[in-house]
């Protein structure tokens, strides 16, 4: 087997707590499908047959009851539950499932919605015998107004600095703004080997990584690394150019033992060599190919550890980890997958005006004289007469009484909107009740118990 897929679905959605305090992030509905359906669908389309899903017990329960997951996902899902306290990082989770991993892995996050041709990433991983291959995308501007934002919010997101070589494929430098206190410093050895480096800041990390099996084994020994994105990837990128990994000599076992005691981490990547390393070396020597030109060194500068990145120029690639991203995804995801706008089991009265880009979930009841434009309505929702819904996202089990006017809002599951309410750019939390004739603009309405969460 070539690659094992691992889906990380235990994340808490820390940047959109208003949405996730009751529903786990992995099961948030996007276009009436749970969020984790999208990466699973991507894997299925690419030809994977088994996926290891790392998630919490709650999500596992919800997965087994969700009809979408049961019917549409034909792959075999091997669900591994971890504790919900949120202390486990992605790398910790990989360490947890180390026993199950037999070959190289493809790690995907549950909040990734994209239609990338995965073979571009995996081909880099295969052709160059890389240790890490990842996917990044040009960041898209979010155009929709986000409920609950007071004024123009400058994204205080920390920028990522990504350095690639001239071909745009080899990853030379990766650091987050938070880690660079004084400034960006680049080692001379990198500059000597790759005199032309492009540093990009407007990229979104899709959190899709192909990792060699040896990296998982390395993680098992180095318990200090807890996050793939935050710690493992920058570490691997730095290690490409470190002196120890560049010594091309084949060390014998005794030397390995000694060095392991001194510096446990550096040699594991060296041990990635296949069993016929001399043959591979012979093939590379006889081959008249070099990945760079202008200096006297051989292909890859003799380095054994290589990291590659595929940067998507066009095409959707979203990470749904903020409210703005969630709204954007709801707009665009159904179009990606050619969703049927109206679920067959929904009951829609004839005098309802439905826009062409609205999506109605299963078992809905839409009454007369309602107008639904550019919105997504979840399963089992009841919409009474004379309601205007525009540009909104309505989740499952919501009841909207007559005469309401909802614009640009997000209504979470099981909420009840009273008669004649007028909501503009609001976020109504889970199970909340809006009193009749309420007028709210640009507010986040959540329960009192939630306000104390930090």
């Amino acid at each position, binding site marked *: 087997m*070539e690659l094992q897929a691992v889906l990380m679905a235990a994340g808490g959605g820390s940047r959109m707590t208003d949405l996730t305090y009751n529903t786990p992030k992995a099961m948030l509905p996007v276009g009436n499908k749970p969020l984790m359906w999208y990466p699973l669908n991507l894997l299925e389309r690419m*030809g994977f047959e088994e996926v290891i899903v790392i998630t919490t017990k709650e999500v596992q329960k919800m997965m087994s009851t969700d009809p979408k997951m049961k019917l549409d996902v034909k792959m075999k899902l091997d669900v591994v539950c971890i504790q919900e306290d949120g202390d486990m990082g992605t790398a910790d989770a990989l360490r947890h499932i180390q026993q199950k991993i037999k070959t190289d892995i493809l790690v995907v996050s549950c909040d990734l919605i994209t239609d990338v041709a995965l073979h571009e990433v995996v081909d880099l991983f295969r052709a160059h015998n890389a240790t890490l291959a990842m996917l990044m995308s040009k960041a898209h501007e979010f155009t929709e107004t986000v409920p609950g934002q007071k004024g123009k919010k400058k994204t205080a997101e920390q920028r990522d600095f990504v350095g690639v070589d001239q071909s745009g494929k080899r990853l030379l430098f990766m650091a987050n703004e938070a880690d660079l206190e004084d400034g960006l410093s680049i080692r001379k050895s990198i500059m000597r080997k790759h005199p032309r480096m492009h540093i990009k800041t407007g990229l979104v990390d899709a959190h899709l990584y192909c990792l060699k099996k040896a990296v998982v084994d390395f993680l098992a020994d180095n318990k200090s690394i807890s996050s793939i994105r935050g710690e493992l990837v920058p570490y691997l990128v730095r290690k490409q150019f470190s002196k120890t990994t560049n010594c091309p000599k084949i060390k014998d076992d005794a030397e390995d033992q000694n060095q392991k005691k001194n510096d446990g981490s550096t040699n594991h990547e060296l041990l990635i060599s296949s069993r016929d390393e001399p043959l591979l070396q012979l093939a590379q020597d006889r081959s008249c190919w070099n990945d760079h030109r202008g200096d006297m060194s051989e292909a890859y500068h003799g380095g054994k550890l290589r990291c590659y990145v595929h940067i998507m120029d066009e095409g959707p690639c979203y990470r749904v980890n903020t409210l703005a991203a969630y709204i954007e995804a709801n707009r665009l995801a159904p179009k990606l997958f050619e969703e049927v706008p109206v679920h067959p089991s929904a009951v829609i009265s004839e005098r309802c005006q439905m826009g062409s880009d609205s999506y109605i979930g299963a078992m809905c009841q839409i009454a007369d004289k309602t107008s639904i434009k550019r919105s997504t309505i979840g399963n089992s929702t009841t919409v009474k007469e004379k309601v205007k819904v525009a540009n909104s996202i309505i989740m499952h089990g919501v009841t909207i009484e007559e005469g309401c006017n909802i614009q640009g809002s997000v209504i979470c599951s099981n909420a009840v909107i009273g008669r004649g309410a007028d909501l503009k750019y609001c976020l109504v939390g889970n199970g909340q009740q809006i009193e009749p004739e309420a007028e709210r603009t640009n507010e986040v309405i959540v329960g009192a118990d939630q306000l104390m969460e930090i």
Partner: protein
Amino acid sequence: MADAGEPEGPERKDDIVKAKQEGKELTKEEKQRLRKEKKQQKKSKEKKDDKPSRDSEKEKKPASAASPAPQTPTQPPAQKAPSAAPAPVPVPASETPSAADKPAKSKAELKAERRARQEAERASKGKKGDVGPQAAPGKPKAPPSELQPVVKRLPEHVQVDNPEVLKKLAKKLERQQTPEYNAATKVKIPLRSDYGYKVSLFSHLHQYSRKAPLTQQLGIPSTVIHPAIVRLGLQYSQGIVAGSNARSVALLHAFKQVIRDYTTPPNEELSRDLVNRLKPYISFLNQCRPLSASMGNAIKYIKKEISNIPSQCKEEEAKRKLLNCIDCYINEKIVLAAKAIAKYSIEKISDGDVILVYGCSSLVNHILCEAFEKNRKFRVIVVDSRPRLEGREALRRLVQKGINCTYVLISAVSYILPEVSKVFLGAHALLANGYVMSRVGTSQIALVAKAFNVPVLVCCETYKFCERVQTDSFVSNELDDPDDLIVTRTGTTQLEHWQEVPSLGLLNLVYDVTPPDFVDLVITDLGMIPCTSVPVVLRVKNVDQ
């Protein structure tokens, strides 16, 4: 009827002209035959007498041609019948003669019928009639009907412009699916589609784009094809493993991994099942990049070794034996052969020599490095050509050793040759008629060197000797990605939209063929032989095996 003879004459002349223009060499035999035919045509007044006899002869000939005789040099002498036509196109030995056999037979019958109809039309002063091309191989291959009643069996890889052959190839790939891994889903090996406009002379060859790899059509965790083979195919198609030695070594390395991961299914024998398992892998690799002669020989060797495994042998032992065989093969045929060739070559390099090399041949680089270590004093001129610019890599390796080098492009070769004392060339394959198949540009260098009376030495290991026969570079070649030509050194692409210009075709050839007249010596691991001794070596090798 004299006038009936006339339209034939100019027609035949047209065919000959066409054949000449399309670059085929008419050998002396063929020219003699043409002359004979013309004389006969003028003499015979009653064409109808000739025609039935010719038709019957033609019908007999396809029957005889169908009998396996792939070596065309033997065919023309055998058919010295008056209206017999030679086969101006030497046919490379096809590996699947049976598949091409059936179309050959039906083509012959169709041809006979059509010829009869044509003569009838001509007798009644009809129009010119179609000469030659039926469903059969495209124009440059179309044997003009008068000259060639003999139907050739062309290998499928040079019949890309024939839709029937493509359909057959697709079916063959389907049949080669490996059913065991997922019994439920039988995944086929996809067919890689051609890219861009192909120059008409080479329309019978495949032309792929590097940006459309075959892996696009495969599932990502490739279960049908072993991951080592997928990786190898990718490396071939992207040019990461290039050069016939490197490709063979990488192929054998991948086969070692396949053999390691192989388990014999129940009720099957390893010797038969493993060979069947390898077949789809080989077609996959062929789709990624056409196999080289050295790879072909390596595959033949492996298949022979696998089939020779006795059935009582246990699986572990059999696998160990096979892995050992592969290691021995690489050691003998590549590593030790390189050492032997270096030893012979060093005798030929004297102090004060100026050696010219072309492109990046791993063997020639090895020889020069060894000679330098043995303290010979010489300097090297590296000749390079676009679009591959492999000479830069050769230059890097030689300069790293400390050898004094000069670097020129191939357009300067006639200016630099007066300085040169010897030319060392590498080879991709040595053909059975003594021709050297090598990177495109090699024959130019050999030609210019001959004009300047500079000795040309070709270095080639014996495992690259091939039983094919070719006299020109058109019949069997490889077309590389045409987009490589549009990027210049400075990175500008003026021809970015070349596909929109209807009258523009880009051709990126990979190989060419050098006649033995230009090669003075071939240095092999068996010794230093003249070019024409290649068939002897092949015969000796066959006897050994």
